[in-house]
């Protein structure tokens, strides 16, 4: 409970130094929440299944981006383009999730570091495909996507075709009403899911794999299912994120996804083995609150926006480190000590 309070205080103090009007801040927050909430949601199920923070959602983000590249290649835009990218990304994300799940089952107890390294590895493969194969082995119809040499995708892909395709589906000024509704629907679905038999199995596996196994639950399969759901949600989340941004950094947009989503969840007070929609919501709010506030506060306080920027990065990594440390500490505390004998 202490972590979100600290971040709230930091944010509020920072806000006082920015001199920003509250309305501007709130408008900005609504947009950022709509943009990020689904990505953060994708982390909850693996945490409940006892697999820790799934840094492997980077692969989900890649699946989303692959789908976006495909629709851009065929110049399909608007609501249809958005829907199509969701449909295309889903089987890719399921495949990725299955593969990640298989690997993580071989690395029980070390899921977090394994999923993080898997993200880096997948990034290498992704670069190989879109930097070397695209245009040479993989035919690209839309030549504006390619570098001037004709091989490899450009660093930036303009997503003008689907920009705001979901956000402004229900027109209400600049507010992304449709996105918020979709997000709400997904949150309710995950909540429903956790109350089903499969959700209960995941909670059991998360609490104690051995007991779950002895009770006849297929532990490995349950874990793979959890990762698949997480990866699919991440793919959708990344598409929602990018349709709001409007451009895609081909080789960079997915890289930070895991880190920022994990940091958001932890800021909300989640831990490595406990997370729910509440932490996701609170955490995303606080993390992005600080994101908006800190560069400006840095500028006003020290005449240097870089200080705030630095603080922001420091916070993102710091909160993850702190959360892992607290977790290790809690675990240590639950052991029997000499005085208990």
């Amino acid at each position, binding site marked *: 409970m202490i972590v979100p309070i600290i971040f709230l205080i930091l944010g509020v103090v920072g806000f006082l130094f920015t001199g920003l009007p509250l309305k501007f801040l709130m408008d900005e927050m609504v947009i950022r929440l709509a943009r990020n909430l689904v990505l953060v949601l994708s982390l909850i199920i693996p945490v409940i299944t006892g697999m820790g923070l799934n840094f492997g959602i980077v692969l989900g983000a890649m699946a989303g981006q692959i789908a976006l590249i495909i629709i851009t290649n065929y110049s399909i835009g608007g609501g249809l383009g958005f829907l199509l990218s969701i449909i295309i990304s889903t089987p890719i994300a399921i495949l990725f999730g299955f593969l990640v799940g298989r690997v993580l089952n071989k690395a029980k107890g070390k899921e977090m570091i394994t999923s993080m390294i898997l993200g880096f590895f997948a990034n290498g493969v992704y670069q190989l495909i879109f930097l070397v194969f695209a245009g040479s082995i993989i035919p690209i119809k839309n030549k504006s996507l390619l570098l001037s040499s004709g091989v490899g995708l450009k660093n930036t892909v303009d997503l003008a075709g689907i920009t705001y395709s979901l956000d402004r589906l229900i027109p209400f000024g600049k507010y992304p009403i449709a996105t918020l509704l979709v997000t709400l629907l997904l949150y309710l679905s995950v909540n*429903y*899911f956790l*109350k*089903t*038999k*499969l959700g*209960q*199995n995941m*909670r*059991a596996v998360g*609490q*104690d794999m051995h*007991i*779950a196994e*002895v*009770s*006849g*639950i297929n532990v490995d399969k349950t874990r793979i299912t959890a990762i698949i759901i997480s990866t699919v949600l991440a793919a959708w989340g990344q598409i929602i994120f990018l349709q709001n941004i409007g451009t895609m950094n081909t080789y960079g947009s997915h890289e930070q996804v895991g880190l920022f989503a994990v940091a958001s969840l932890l800021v909300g007070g989640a831990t490595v083995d406990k997370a729910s929609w509440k932490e996701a919501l609170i955490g995303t709010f606080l993390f992005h609150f600080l994101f908006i506030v800190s560069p400006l506060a840095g500028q006003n306080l020290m005449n240097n926006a870089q200080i705030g920027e630095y603080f922001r990065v420091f916070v993102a990594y710091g909160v993850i480190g702190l959360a892992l440390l607290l977790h290790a500490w809690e675990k240590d505390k639950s052991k*029997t*000590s*000499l005085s208990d*004998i």
Partner: protein
Amino acid sequence: MDLLQMKNITKLYTENRVLNQVSLSIKEGEIHGLVGENGAGKSTLMNILFGMPVIHSTGGFEGEMLFNGRSFLPKSPEEAMNLGIGMVHQEFMLIPGFTITENIKLNREKTKPTFVSKIFGERLEKLDLNAMAKDARKSLDKLNMSIDEYLPVAGLPVGYMQFIEIAREIDKSKLKLLILDEPTAVLAETEAAQFLDIINKLSEMGISILFISHRLDEIKKITDSITILRDGEVVKTIETSEISIADMAGLMVGRNIEMIRKKKNERNAGDEYILEIKDFKVNMPGERVKGLDLKVRKGEILGLGGLAGQGKIGIANGIMGLYETSGTIIKNGNKLPLNNPREILHSSIAFLSEDRRGVGLLLDDSIEFNIGFSSLEVQNKFLKKIGPLNLIDEKKIREYALKMIEELDIRCTGPKQHTRYLSGGNQQKVCIARALTLEPDLLLISEPTRGIDIGAKKLVLDTLVKLNKKLNMTVIITSSELGELRQVSDRIAIIYNGKVGGILPPDASDEQFGLLMAGESLDKVVN
């Protein structure tokens, strides 16, 4: 009619025969006791009955089983459960973060179909928490438990947890046979009494019960018949009313030991104490020592025996300071520091761990280095000074190692051979050689013959006796094998529940040892 018949069950783990032609049968509604020391084969037998994967991944077993008159070969726990076999494990199989209801209904949850589940299948049916709670309540009521079924399990007293495990088993509608693996080990006396009442009640409901326990008085009180296992074989199957507790204990422990012991007067144990331990506690998981007092005479071989988990292993590890400890250790009148292995080694104490390959040896280093490294590290032996540098004196180590190899008869290709490739017996001798290099006057040795074949066992034990006699070295030997303790020790302390249960001479009767190990008090045992 017999509900369960196991006929001529034989199980080998690689070459090791852990069960030999074991037969067991249980009648309907009967309470059957299964008694035996650690390693007698009880767990393996239960694993076979419960279809545990470990059995099938190690080559299955020989023999025949009939359940309810039909041939029965479970390949997985699920299969056994479906036929109506339930098991309450020694360690709790409860999820602490779940409520009592969730635990009782674990993986047998009641669900109701919803719109989503009709599309995506049964696994997405919603849990019906009310129906689940009702079922849980019914099972709890059968056990006279008034506790709220919505409470989380974490934080409940252990006694309750045991009952919840049973509630979970009887919630399975088809339950015919319930296996209880040392269910009362964690219970306080009043809880245990209540527990036994419930077992009787279950038996009246027509459920057969297989009751595994070390508490012989409980076995005597509650069971209808008993099977006693020893070294993987059935020693006796008998109606409970026809056997006394003392006879049970005797049959459980008794072995035809070839007594190679020397006469008392050949021993050189004096009345002086070399080591005194007071209110000693060791936080070694699974082998906790809980406030033990022990005095060790100079020049004796003291055996530490007892069942697994009672704390005998924790004592030597605690003296060495390898686990968190408290209390007082006095050696030759000096107080020794706690939790400081280096200081202990400086105090002429050497330790051979029960985990020979893990803690005892550098498996990928040569024999000579293994023999030398402790004293090199602690006593600066085998070092030569060249300028400011201390270098290892390879020549000195080699000479010494060759001497030790000859003296202890270590079978190897030479001092350069890596210890990983030695047989268990020879590895143990390398450990002994290393300990001797420290020139200790007190040697702590745990499970000296574990994983060593019979021929080599005798050699290792003979070596210990020889060291004791020749060098007047005091030896504390910790072993799960009572037989070997009785061969070499002057006195044997049986550890029960983290304390000394009693000290017996090695020629005390099987019954006396058996009763002490089962937690009876010494006065009762001797009379």
